[in-house]
């Protein structure tokens, strides 16, 4: 169930009011690369057992989503949408982007579970499935602005956020309705030539 409630709208109002204050009091300037999330010093493992550190992702743009394999809500919809997107996009965009799925439930999502998920969802090699420690996932999510919480055994409440990273690992685009609207992502990919 993904219904929003009055409570949530009220909270969102408060949050926006608070954020408006934040926005007025902060400036945003930085050196190129200074915002790259690849500066996070976390260790990950791919579903094939290979160790991965974030700087290894440099060079390609990435479409990133945080998921968990036992999710019965929107994660499978998001993943399916990413997969359809990856297959249907024009060739010029296709070679610029890779896909990253990071589990928020490393306890349940063992490497074997992730491998099974890859088979079931028919994900090709342009998709990486990553597993890290609970604190690594929390840190990555904190940087992305992805909120999640385990609400009962096996289920999480979570944002439906997908993120586009440029070839250096800086966030260049985020949206919460990717499953129904992937055009914006395609535009972003075309605007950012890959630097290798």
């Amino acid at each position, binding site marked *: *169930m993904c219904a929003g409630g009055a409570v949530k709208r009220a909270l969102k109002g408060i949050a926006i009011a608070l954020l408006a204050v934040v926005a007025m009091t902060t400036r945003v300037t930085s050196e190129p690369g200074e915002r790259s999330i690849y500066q996070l010093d976390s260790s990950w493992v791919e579903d094939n057992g290979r160790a991965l550190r974030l700087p290894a992702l440099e060079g390609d743009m990435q479409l990133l989503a945080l998921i968990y394999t036992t999710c019965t809500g929107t994660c499978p919809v998001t993943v399916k949408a990413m997969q359809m997107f990856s297959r249907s996009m024009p060739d010029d965009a296709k070679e610029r982007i890779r896909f990253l799925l990071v589990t928020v439930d490393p306890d349940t999502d063992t490497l074997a579970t992730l491998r099974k998920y890859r088979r079931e969802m028919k994900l090709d090699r342009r998709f990486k499935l990553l597993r890290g420690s609970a604190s690594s996932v929390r840190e990555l999510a904190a940087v992305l602005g992805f909120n999640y919480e385990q609400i009962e055994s096996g289920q999480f409440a*979570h944002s439906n956020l997908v993120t586009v990273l440029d070839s250096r690992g800086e966030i260049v685009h985020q949206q919460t309705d990717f499953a129904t609207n992937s055009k914006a992502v395609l535009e972003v990919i075309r605007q950012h030539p890959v630097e290798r």
Partner: protein
Amino acid sequence: MRPSIAASMLVLIAIGFAQPAYASACRAREVFVPAGVYTPFFKTEGGTRWVPVAPICLGEAPVTNEDFLGFIREHPDWRKSRIKALFAEDSYLADWQDDFTPQPEAVSKPVTFVSWFAAGAYCEARGGRLPTVAEWERFAGGSVATSQHGAAPFAFAMGSSAPELANTALKFPGIWEWTVNFNSALVSGRIGTSEGADSSQFCGDGIRAVDPSNYGAFLRYSFRASLRANFALKNLGFRCVRAVP
């Protein structure tokens, strides 16, 4: 050593391990918080939840500018002149005159304008960590009437000692405080990039407040959800916790 003495010492050691954690295990300027239960502010479809919380040694007050200066001297990467934008936005330590100079009158006041990364790094360097939301709400979620706090506008939402900690040295000087999992609330605070309809942003919520009259909790949860890890805000500081040794 005679076998009987050795055996009785072993028994004593075993008893020591079996004992519950005691307040004496905490350091100076820390308060012992016994094991307890946290009731999340939001019910799920399964109803109200109760989450057990382990005992902790808790900083009796938020970390001060003076404390933070000590950390900065030991860890140059966290100086305001060197910090990377990923780890703290430009307003990081905005009220300090330079890398090593907090406002003279604020030396013993809580350090603010610190990011989640900087706060976490400080706690780690001191052998601790930031509290979880569950821990924070348990030790500071005590509800206080709005009228008791005249000056700070949101002070009623910024924490007050849980009843069982009322006679401790625990202090809440009227600032927001970082938690390690601040990004766990099911509230969208993101604007500008949330182009989708409201209902598309989250899944698995069906949220309802356990106590809809708890305005302070509404504010805290939505404030946390609106944060990013590199935010450095005027009214946002932190305190550390440690596992009871």
